[in-house]
């Protein structure tokens, strides 16, 4: 049914000489649901790419595929020009791709510093006991650098506010020595104050130029403010790929308005066909 619907433009595979990541013809189905049909995407070094899309358009599926959490059905990914086939989240992380998932992947029962180092814990040698003091110290430094105020880092994260938890998830990824960061709605549970702190952090990372970032956002103003380029994903394909200085809130809004209008027309024609 979705296949029958005409999509105005599908962005073909594009590339730039300084690409760190390229995603070509990725598709992914979950039973009867096609989450990704044919996704083409590229990410340049030091770039912040904003990914927009309606609920269920496939944004999170795409992020989970790049992050190594799940495998695509078809298509190829390239990391620094080499074929990239992550065997898992850990493998992707060891290749320099780290992710803030939409659900944050925080463990309520564990302390802030154990969450910060989850799955890349420091241990002593030769007996591999957890180096808690070192992890606490580095957590404190990392949180201070970001400027998020978390009074105590040895309490369970269950006791923190939504914004604080989100800040910890972002700090964990930023602190991970990865050179590609995937942020799935990093501002979702945040108030203006904490949200602007994360946007400042992204701006600072961009200025440093070391990392490249793909960020899922909902707020067009944030996209235009924080990102170099914006891609829109609709019905499992990328339909827009533009530098942010060549687009505007109006254009992005119009695309979405058109999408809603098309969906409504389609529903009406289906109902007529049935009736």
């Amino acid at each position, binding site marked *: 049914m979705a296949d029958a619907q005409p999509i105005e433009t599908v962005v073909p595979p594009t590339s730039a000489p300084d690409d760190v990541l390229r995603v070509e013809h990725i598709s992914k189905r979950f039973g009867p649901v096609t989450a990704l049909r044919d996704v083409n995407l590229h990410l340049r070094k030091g770039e912040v790419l904003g990914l927009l899309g309606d609920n269920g358009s496939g944004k999170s599926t795409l992020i989970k595929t790049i992050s190594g959490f799940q495998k695509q059905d078809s298509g190829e990914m390239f990391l620094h020009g080499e074929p990239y086939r992550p065997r898992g989240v850990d493998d992707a992380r060891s290749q320099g791709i780290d992710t803030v998932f939409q659900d944050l992947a925080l463990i309520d*029962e564990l302390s802030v510093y154990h969450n910060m180092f989850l799955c890349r814990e420091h241990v002593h040698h030769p007996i591999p006991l957890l180096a808690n003091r070192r992890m606490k110290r580095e957590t404190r430094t990392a949180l201070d650098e970001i400027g998020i105020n978390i009074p105590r880092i040895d309490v369970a994260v269950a006791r923190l506010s939504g914004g604080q938890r989100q800040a910890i998830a972002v700090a964990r990824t930023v602190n991970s020595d990865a050179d590609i960061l995937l942020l799935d709605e990093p501002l979702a549970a945040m108030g203006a104050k904490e949200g602007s702190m994360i946007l400042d952090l992204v701006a600072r990372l961009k200025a440093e130029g070391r990392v490249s970032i793909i960020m899922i956002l909902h707020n067009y103003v944030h996209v235009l403010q924080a990102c170099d380029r914006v891609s829109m994903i609709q019905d499992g394909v990328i339909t827009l790929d533009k530098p942010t200085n060549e687009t505007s809130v109006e254009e992005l809004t119009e695309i979405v308005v058109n999408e809603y209008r098309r969906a409504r027309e389609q529903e009406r024609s289906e109902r007529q066909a049935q009736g």
Partner: protein
Amino acid sequence: MSSVTGGPPASESQASGEGPEPRARSFDTHGPLARVLSLREGSIIVVAIVTAVYFSLETSNFLTGANFKTLLPYFAPLTILAAGEVFVMILGEIDLSIGAMYLFSPILFYKLSTAGISLVPSVVIALLCCMAVGAVNGFFTAVVGISSFVATLGMLFTFEGLSLIISHGAPVNTPGAEVHQTTVKVEHVVNGHHIFLTETVNHVGTFAKIFGAGTYSEFIWAIVIVFLLQTALTFTRWGLHTVAIGSNKLGAAEAGVSVRLITIRNFVLCSLTAGLVGILEAVRAGSVQPDPSGANEILFFAIASAVIGGTLLAGGSGTVIGALIGALFLGILQDGLILQGVNANYKLFYLGLAIIVAMTVNVYVQRARRGHGSG
């Protein structure tokens, strides 16, 4: 998004906003009791102590060295069983097959030993077989996706049945646990006269002394295992990832925790400790009893020890030391009821009521503890 993150209750965030260390302050103002209560297994420690004090006041011989020795076989085996079970329960799973491993491993040990394999290698092979069963439990749970309750219930029946088949339902003497009797002349002083009386002394071999027959053998095994497993749980990546899976399985997987591997590993550990207890108990008793109902009772007591010791059936939280205290509590109850001269027919009845009363008290002690803001 709000459904995923869910902030803490307002009262808690207020408490943490009051000052940098509200928890430390409640220690200072409420003294050592609050300090004990702030431990996860704190409330059950209090309940166990109260129970012990009750029995020492009610009976004249509860607080004696001899009674401590009687108490040991009640709680040491339960402690070891519960210690392994805690690792599975923290994952949010349950292993019912420990009853079968408890029954199966000494029978296998007997078969191997009578087939000509020497004692220690027989123990090792029997325990390796238990670990293989644990790996199968883990495989069904983590890879196939059967609920661990059902998968391990199936394994419980299967291996209890297998135990009956290979043992033909007949009890046998435990290899290596034979008792040799010697007579010695012991000097006594009676009315100022030195006289010698002949006494019979029982001897067991070194193997038996180490594997359960020595007075403190099971106790030492229990203490060493609790120490090692609590250390693993609190201070290693394995323990941290175990808690992570039990608390938020999807989140742990997204963070890169190998959920399947840890799940299988913990089931293997649980089967290993159960198999070990089976052999220790068979050596201590001197005979291998193919009795599934006894094994099932042990299974329930072991899981009860873990739960009483503060391990959540839902997963994400629990301690090995708590399991030790839970087992100690059950041991004190059983031993105390016997010392009080409770009719054998009433023992189980009173035991059940006492568990319910104690756990009700435990809930109130925990609420008091939360009141200190240190939950």
